[in-house]
């Protein structure tokens, strides 16, 4: 009886997810971020809000790509007039560019600090504040205990947090919901015209709690995320049609 067994196992898995706090989402929550198949990798196929996401970046180019990707997510999170806090060590983020990713730059509060410790303190305080749409922290090192503190803060307030880890030396396990890596990819020319195309990234989920890690190519065009395979498929369909 393999069928009944499979059914039993899937039911048990669902139960476990429920006990861990993952509720069956309302229908509108699917494809919330417009990330398509990326979102399907998460439990229940829903991008986890009210959790801490960790993004690792190896150099400035990757850190910038991470910034762009997170800003794209923020655009959705800040849709209904929320504010967000961007806590960083470098302070070289250029507010004008956020508008291109659909975020009102004047609704973002920038905090520039000099130490990881301060970033973590400010981030924890901020994540406890339920009125915020999101909190982004750029830092170097974070251990399990510190990530746990952030996670606990988030569970109370349901604020979404993003930790951008820049040039970290060690990659221990953390209590974050997901670990991402965003790398810039060469863009495709638009309609065969010269010049730069739309920003294109290789989005990789290194770790997902209760989900499927994977690798995707995502582009930012027309003010939203566009998974690239999907578009290529569409184009092919058009050609065939």
């Amino acid at each position, binding site marked *: 009886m393999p069928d009944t067994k499979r059914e039993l196992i899937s039911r048990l898995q669902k139960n476990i997810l429920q006990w861990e706090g993952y509720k069956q989402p309302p229908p509108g929550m699917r494809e919330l971020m417009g990330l398509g198949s990326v979102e399907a990798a998460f439990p229940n196929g829903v991008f986890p809000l009210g959790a801490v996401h960790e993004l690792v970046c190896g150099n*400035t*180019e990757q*850190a*910038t*790509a991470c*910034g*762009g*990707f997170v*800003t794209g997510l923020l655009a959705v999170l800040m849709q*209904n*007039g*929320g*504010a967000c806090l961007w806590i960083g060590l*470098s*302070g*070289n*983020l*250029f*507010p*004008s*560019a*956020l*508008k*291109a*990713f659909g975020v*009102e*730059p*004047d*609704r*973002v*509060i*920038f*905090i*520039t*600090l000099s130490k990881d410790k*301060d970033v973590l*303190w*400010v981030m924890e*305080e*901020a994540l406890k*504040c*339920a*009125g*915020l*749409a999101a909190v982004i922290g750029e830092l170097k090192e974070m251990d399990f205990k510190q990530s746990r503190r952030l996670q606990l803060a988030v569970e109370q307030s349901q604020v979404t947090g993003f930790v951008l880890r820049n040039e970290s030396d060690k990659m221990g396990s953390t209590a974050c919901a997901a670990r991402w890596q965003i*790398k*810039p*990819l*060469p*863009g495709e*020319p638009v309609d065969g015209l*010269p*010049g*730069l*195309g739309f*920003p*294109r990234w290789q989005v990789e989920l290194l770790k997902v709690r209760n989900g499927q890690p994977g690798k995707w190519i995502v582009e*930012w065009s027309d003010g939203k995320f566009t998974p690239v395979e999907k578009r290529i498929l569409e184009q092919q369909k058009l050609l065939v049609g």
Partner: protein
Amino acid sequence: MQKRFVVIWFRHLTTDWLTLRRPELKDVPFVFAAPERNRIIITASNPTAEVQGVYRGMAAADAKAITTNLQVLDHIPGKEAKLLRQLGLWCIRYTPIVAIDLPDGLVLDISGCTHLWNGERGYLKEIVNKLRASGYDARAAIADTIGAAWAVARFGKTSPIINNGTQAQALMGLPPIALRLEPLVLEKLHKLGFSTIKSFMQIPRSVLRRRFGEGFLLRLAQALGLEDEIIEPLIPPVPYAERLPCMEPVRTAKAIEIAIQKLLEGLCARLQAEGKGVRKATLKCYRIDGKMVQAGISTNRGSHSVSHLFKLFELQVSKIEPALGIELFLLEAPKVEDVDAPQEKLWAGNPGLQDTALAELLDRIATKVGPERIRRYLPAEHYWPERSIKPAVSLSEIPLTKWRTDRPRPLRLLRRPERVEVMALLPDYPPKVFTYRGKRHIVEKADGPERIEREWWRDKGEHRDYYAVEDSNGGRYWLFRSGHYDAAPEWYLHGFFA
């Protein structure tokens, strides 16, 4: 409450000071003198000189002719103000409101202070005796108005205490100079034969105004108490303050926290009743070793929430060094503002930046890491990238112009552009290869140039030609060439695109 004032007159302010510093001058006639219109005029003379007939305003040459052993010293500009300030600060032990009355007097607002010295007589005696004992020849008077007290202190012949409402009688017999009038008006009064205040007090105001002007009437009315006079206190009183003396000196952090809590409860109850909120507050801790330590907080918007303000002070408790113990806590709120009562919303939208919780969060962060690290930006109408944003003044400031999206702008902008080595195929072409921090990047695609001119009315220098380029790994950069393409153009990397 009926206002009462003390005016103290120092008859020999600067000379007394010099006598204190150089006791050998006590019995020597000496004067201070300063040049005025090509003559050396005496600005102050000591009592010994005055006995011999040397007064202020005399020419120094005449004075030397009168007395044989007169010492003429250089007048020290600004000395009176300095001395009066010191004496005024000393007088704060008698009343919190002390003002300087240049060139030789102090004004004390003593309303409600005298009962501590058994009435006004004891109070006045105490001040004058203490001042005289310390070597200053002081005369003082108490009256309902500053003008009357001033007149009686300088020209009064009977009692220095003018009872409530009797200043008119007290002024009757005094000369017009007691009203603090201008020399021109005094001269006119003298010519017309008005030798006492009594002689013109009853004359209708319109007649007096026509002859002596508005200033004269104001001085008369101020002396009689018909017009209010405003003084500028040496130490401006803080309207919102709470004190907490301790029975035993306090040393532990917990005890300091309890003290803060108590002070805040008192202060916030009052603020709430008046619809105000704290923007800035200072906790002053007076220690038993005579030193004072203080901790300050500031908020983004007025708050009278005990729990929030306590949290802000809690972050500062570790900075308060109690040493042997603190015996007095003083909580002052020098800056308060009106707060609107929070209105319950029927449909709760996301309050965004106007959220009280967010303002409180930022207060806590500012207290911990410093307010200069928190920034919010608004668009500024400049093309020059560094000037195209400006920091917002407050959370409620909204952008006056739209954010521009018509030109590509990098997500990360370097604070100062960094030099790169570049190879370009042709003049005015985007670079083919560039080396940034020792790493070679081969440029695959490029956009540009976008020329941004310097604002010539602000600074001089070369314009910039910006190119957005993408290297073979997909990294996207913002490069610019400074100035025109000539023999050795300088190239810089200014930012990273997402």
